């Protein structure tokens, strides 16, 4: 079978130990469901892994006043099933429950999914395969096969939870050698497919904080993939509409993934304010269509996937329009 390269492994029991080990330049591994396939493809050859699996404190999910705190070690299965998540953040439960297949969700953690390496059809292949195309910016080469003459890697952000959490105004807590910091997830990702987060060497993501809705809200996660399981998203759009008591839109957030390496916040026309969901569906869908231009970095025709952004976004909003809004005090 495909074998991983050799590495040393440490499994610290405290976060401080883990940070100290990570600061010495080790690769972090939590559930390993993203890292291990990449290691088997020899996309990375770290000398040392630091496994976070013994850090039990990172697994907690807790309500803290107006904030839901989800430990980065919580598994996607746990998040998808958590009653607090389901009640206040159904789109997060939906996204976590739509990742890959059941066995992967039992291992994959929130922290791992947030840091899921960017993916590309020219990258996530074996060494032999990549050598046949001379590698690329993200592997052993110097060219991009997606954007000819491109200087930046545009491998696709393929996490299901990232667009959702950005739409929900989530923040991420990182513990590092110089202490803790909290960053807005909306500002955490970059357009560089080789290093698409602002995580610093030695930093460990510990917790995601999501503010609870203050009023009625409608959220959805749109994911398209050829199969109903296993596949990564090929289209992904997170939707959030804050509503007033009359169910009129007061705030709309639309965040798309699987374009380049950075999630795309779609600017929604101001005219949606004060309208009912059913009335804004096409408007928002058109805005998403205008802003989202998928690339040939993942399978299926980019123009087709762009078409899906519009159709599936509109349908998701239409569906929300017919559902009672969850949440709200």
């Amino acid at each position, binding site marked *: *079978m*495909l074998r991983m390269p050799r590495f040393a492994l440490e499994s610290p029991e405290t976060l401080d130990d883990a940070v100290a080990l990570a600061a010495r330049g080790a690769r972090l591994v939590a559930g390993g469901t993203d890292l291990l396939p990449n290691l088997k493809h020899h996309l990375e050859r770290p000398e040392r892994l630091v496994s976070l699996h013994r850090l039990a404190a990172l697994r907690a999910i807790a309500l803290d006043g107006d904030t839901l705190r989800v430990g980065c070690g919580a598994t996607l299965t746990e998040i998808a099933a958590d009653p607090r998540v389901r009640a206040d953040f159904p789109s997060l439960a939906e996204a976590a429950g739509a990742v890959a297949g059941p066995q992967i969700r039992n291992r994959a953690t929130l922290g791992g999914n947030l840091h899921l390496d960017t993916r590309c059809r020219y990258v996530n292949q074996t060494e*032999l*395969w990549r050598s*046949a195309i001379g590698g690329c910016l993200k592997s052993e080469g110097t060219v991009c096969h997606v954007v000819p003459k491109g200087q930046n890697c545009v491998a696709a952000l393929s996490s299901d939870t990232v667009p959702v959490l950005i739409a929900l105004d989530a923040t991420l807590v990182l513990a590092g050698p110089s202490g803790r910091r909290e960053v807005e997830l909306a500002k955490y990702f970059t357009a560089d497919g080789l290093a698409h987060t602002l995580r610093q060497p030695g930093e460990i993501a510990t917790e995601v904080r999501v503010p609870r809705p203050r009023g009625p809200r409608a959220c959805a996660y749109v994911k398209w993939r050829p*199969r*109903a399981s*296993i596949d990564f998203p090929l289209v992904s759009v997170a939707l959030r509409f804050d509503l007033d008591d009359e169910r009129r839109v007061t705030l709309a957030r639309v965040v798309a993934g699987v374009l380049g390496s950075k999630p795309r916040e779609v600017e929604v026309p101001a005219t949606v304010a004060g309208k009912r969901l059913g009335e804004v569906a096409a408007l928002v869908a058109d805005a998403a269509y205008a802003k989202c231009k998928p690339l040939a970095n993942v399978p*299926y025709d980019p123009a087709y996937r762009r*078409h899906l952004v519009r159709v599936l976004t509109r349908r998701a909003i239409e569906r929300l329009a017919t559902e009672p809004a969850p949440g709200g005090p």
Partner: protein
Amino acid sequence: MSAPKKDHVGGWHKKLGAMDRMRGLAKYTDDLELPGMLHAKIVRSPHAHARIVSIDASEALALDGVAAVITGRDMPIPYGIIPWTQDENALALDKVLYVGDGVAAVAAIDEDTANEAVRRVKVEYEVLPAIFDPEEALRSDVKINPYSRKGNLTKEVELEFGDVDGALAGSALVIEGEYFFEGTTHAAIEPHCALAKVDPDGLVTVWSATQVPHYLHRELARVLELPARRIRVIQPPLGGAFGGKSEPFDLEFCVAKLAMITNRPVKLLYTREEVFYSHRGRHPMRMRYRTGFDADGRITAVESQTTLDGGAYSSFGLVTTYYSGQLLTAPYGFGTYRFHSRRAYTNKPACGPKRGHGSVQPRFAMEIQLDKAAEALGVDPIELRRRNAIAADDLTINELRIGSTGFLACLDAVERASGWKERRGQLPYGRGLGVAGSTYISGTNYPIYPNEMPQSAVQVTLDRSGRARIFSGASDIGQGSDTMVAVIVGEELGLPLEDVRVLSADTDLCPVDLGAYSSRITLMVGNACLNAAQELRRKVQGSVAKRWGVEKSRVVLADRQAIDREDPSRAVPITQAIEWAESEHGLLAAAGSYNTPKDRHGSYRGGTIGASPAYSMTAHLAEVEVDDETGEVRVIAIWCAHDCGRAISRGLVEGQIEGSTYMGAAEAVLEVHAVDPAHGGVHAGPSLLDYRLPTALDTPAIHALIVEAPDAQGPYGAKEAGEGPLHSSIPAIANAIYDAVGVRLDELPFTPERVLAALEEKRKRERQSPREKLPLVAQAAEAEE
């Protein structure tokens, strides 16, 4: 008689060895481990077409733990499953012909060391122009396969039966269409694996995940330059095959050679990527069809031109090229027929036989042609098929002798079960029903290498413990052939399945059987087994009759007893009966052979190819839902009625129907096996992430309906069930899509992009021609008028 029904022919049986597999006890090839075993890996080409300038293995050999490195020069004799097209080497000699072609092999102490050694083998290549399009290959002066005798043409077949042009000219309706099948692969979940060891006395034993131990045995002898008696091939429990393990592959030669060189056992397990490179999957075909009909919808003429994309090697391609035309001539009668098929070499993984070898692609085209004709003529598509159905014992236009046919019963069964009559035309826009029919062979009358010996043989013994043993060369590849032979022996000797042992697919222990391909095992091995079991039964009956002083015909073997038919109170345990018989005859052993009829084939050159002892018949009826905004096709349900002659074991036959229908549905909507010409011919995605097999959530409800039209050639009337029920699954879905949204999909697979593009094309047409805006039901009503 109190023998439980389940142990009889036609009953439902637990599969032999299934519990072993379900408890994790069965040892598949990769589960075997021998003392001192080395692990082998193959160095593969990153180029689609290149000359090998030099190979330097010195750095690999210098690595601690590396035992040996071999190259093509160590095994220079070419091989190939078809004796006339031996155009492969175990490892490339002078040229590599596709990305993934094997160049050298290493054996090392463990996998990690072997992988490192692979990295250290330095191969210098001179890159040559690569060709990925078969039409271009046929025009090109660049010769791909060095053994080719006709440029890049690997096989051409042109056959004509009757005056096709005249018939087309005189037809009331001629339907023309061009169809394209892009290619799919088997994707058995078990990757190929082989293990070899050399005994001190020189016997080379190869365990391999193969479905053709006998052909592997022959080719090993040829390439290793050893007498066949010095080689033993064993097929351990197999994790699926579907045609993907039906010829020798590089790994089997490499482990044997490396074991001979190192004098240690050597194992090689393909990575999933290598499974995709070894391929031998369904050929891409471009097919142009013209089909003529008279005013009543009877087929007057069929004319086809087909280009097959063969990939780098011939594999079974000679046969595939024939099958692309020869197997189309049932279940419908053709007034006249002409086909012209050409197979080209290209710089891709070689194509070969996948379940429904050679005839799934033309069946796709043909059944859509029929659907188009039914609409044009205003005839119900099932009715059109009924009108054209051939009858039992008919001779097809290309002189195949059809024995039994349950095709009409198949059509009736799917029509009834699906509610076709009540529902068709009543479903809302976006939902549709489609029908298609097909036929398939139950083995071939002529074996792959010409000889007059039996195609199948078994030995059956009975011993005083009351147990029957079957030594059978047949390969149980998951389809349950071991169970099938046990049921036959149990039926004849009155034994429950648990008293029947099957030892199969070991060339030292078992007589020759040609293997698990072309749906031959039930008919051929079943017949051989029946002969042997009946001979034993007669001996036992005779000895018992003698003891009892009655006529032999009064002795019945059932329920572990010998019973007097006329006085059922007189009975002895089977062990007693066997003791009497063994005392009289010596060891109770019988050899059974089966050879095919040699008087059932066409009287023209090529007329033997496609000739089978018996033909199965199939009808599929699919129900789909098409999202006209996204182009997504959801196959809701498929009813498949399959005439298998006689279901020897109902659960196993249903399993074949369900599995075949699933595989066809997967090829219809999801699966594509292709290379990327824009990137040097790399595989489009050699993994089970990128080559998408449907999950349980993506698979339609499948309703298996067994139809039995017993055939005189088959054991108890049985015909095949393993491949036929795939064919019409695909066009039934295509026709259902048309019924749902009014677009024809003439290219496979029906990806959402393609469906959407077809829908947009239709909308554009409708804007230009308002008449077509009528709802489909109204259009159909118009057509009826």
